[in-house]
């Protein structure tokens, strides 16, 4: 298992290897980052605000004189963790609904698909802004909002895959054998669409990272004292005029995460087409 994964990684083109390395790096940071932080997250440790790079503070200090590296290491956990959970929720909900539609016949499929088509024609940022205005933005709500925003996109792709598979001979055979709908959906259809679904999961993850950090950047996402990478960009925006590292570092961190995932999906090559940001 591990050996074959290693072999696959070796066969990737250079861009894919870079992507894989970035993804592994950020997963590790999300898991172990807070343990590696040189200073406590909220501590005021530098005498200067918006300090440049130094041996004591690798990424300088922020607008209050806190250590940027420490804040970034703990902020990554919010960005990666929230987005991964939301993407997982969006993908599993979308796929479950898609499977229901595929085996449920037109009576289930028609209304469900019409409803999703309607949701998909609301631009995702606009939709999430309305949701945040209505419900607020605690961490749990943000997770649900991000997931809900991207369910329709996953549904559309999963449904297209599932409906195609449901027409295949082996599924017809299973049906003739008298298997139940649940069995057909889970044991016959789902295993054969898992690869494109994984690629779609990666895309959802990228969209959600961008959405959540965008919201945090607007001050509508993760609220202080918690801070994800988008919040770090926002709180240091006053340092823009002097080109502070405190604003550039978290922004670049988000970009390396999303670009990494994108490069990896592109290199693996079974990408489905998703809804944009």
């Amino acid at each position, binding site marked *: 298992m591990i050996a074959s994964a290693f072999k696959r990684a070796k066969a990737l083109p250079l861009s894919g290897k870079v992507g894989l390395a970035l993804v592994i790096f950020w997963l590790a940071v999300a898991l172990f980052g807070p343990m590696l932080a040189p200073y406590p997250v909220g501590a005021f440790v530098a005498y200067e605000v918006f300090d440049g790079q130094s041996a004591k503070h690798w990424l300088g200090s922020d607008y209050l004189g806190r250590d940027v590296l420490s804040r970034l290491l703990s902020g990554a956990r919010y960005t990666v963790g929230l987005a991964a959970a939301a993407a997982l929720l969006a993908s599993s909900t979308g796929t479950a609904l898609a499977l229901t539609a595929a085996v449920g016949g037109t009576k289930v499929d028609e209304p469900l698909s019409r409803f999703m088509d309607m949701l998909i024609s609301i631009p995702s940022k*606009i939709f999430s*802004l309305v949701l945040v205005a209505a*419900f607020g933005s605690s961490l749990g709500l943000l997770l649900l909002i991000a997931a809900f925003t991207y369910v329709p996109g996953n549904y559309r792709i999963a449904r297209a895959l599932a409906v195609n598979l449901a027409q295949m001979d082996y599924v017809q055979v299973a049906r003739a054998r008298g298997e139940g709908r649940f069995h057909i959906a889970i044991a016959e259809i789902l295993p054969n669409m898992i690869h494109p679904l994984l690629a779609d999961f990666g895309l959802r993850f990228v969209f959600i990272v961008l959405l959540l950090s*965008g919201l945090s*950047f607007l001050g509508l996402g993760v609220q202080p004292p918690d801070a994800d990478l988008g919040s770090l960009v926002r709180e240091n925006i006053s340092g823009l*005029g002097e080109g502070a590292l405190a604003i550039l570092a978290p*922004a*670049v961190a988000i970009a390396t995460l999303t670009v990494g995932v994108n490069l990896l999906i592109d290199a693996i090559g079974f990408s489905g087409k998703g809804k944009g*940001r």
Partner: protein
Amino acid sequence: MAAASSASGMSAALTLIGKRFASSLLTLLLVSLTIFVIAQLLPGDAAQEALGQSATAEQVAALRHEMGLDRPAHIRYASWLTGMVSGDPGQSMVANMPVAEVIAERLPNSLLLAALSALVAVPVALAIGIGSAMNRGGRIDRALNIVTLSMVAVPEFLVATVAVLIFSVKLRWLPSIALVADDMTWGEYLRGVAMPILTLSIIVIAQMARMTRAAVIDQMDRPYVEMAVLKGVAPVRIVMRHIMPNAIAPIVNAMALSLSYLLGGAVIVETIFNYPGLASLMVNAVTSRDMPLLQACAMIFCAAYLILMLIADVTAILANPRLRAQ
């Protein structure tokens, strides 16, 4: 005979376009219902919120009545919808002005910004897309693929931040805030909005170039192109004379689809540069929970998105003779 069949083909296309238009309208109606329902679900009550904790129950009840919040939901929806359609989406709670007036002030700014960004983005994206399609599999193509693939995943505020660092902090060419005033000349205005336009264009170009490349490459694999190659037609001429006339519809389709990225991008870009447009207005409406204003802004964005999708689909219908004949 041929004339008759093409006439019936045309009318079939018109029917198809009519159907597509009707379904867009229906979608917009459903979207309005969704937005209304979500906006009305907010915990707490707008009247309570406006008056604060110290208000007496009578005051709240009076304001509720004045705002029409004591009527049943479906009546409120109907009156909001008719108001929206007739150009009066209600009263902004924070600005204490009709929503229509607040929006009328901001909407032209956003449309101008979007138009100028599209004007910059379209030619550049076309050049990149066609260029990399002609160089398919080559070094330039692969390099451009990595660049555009990365750019579609880069957050808008990073693009904006880097642009500010380069053009206003290091080079000092452009202001880092979009200053817009009524008495500005065109030159001053363009200088003022150069940064938002640059940022928005970069965001859109990457997506647009990728889709253009895909559209051109799809044509390149057709037999007629192979025929032209075997005849010895020069590559540039193949693209310009043979491929472009056939690829123009898919390209317009791609342009319309990727222009929808402007909508989401504007939310961030208008805020970061303090540009007085509709998107930054909407963000303010979220922050202050000004629901009438928020609903109206959201509907305008959704309508814009649906119009772009409609344009994309209509070009696809008009361009595809098989679709026309159906």
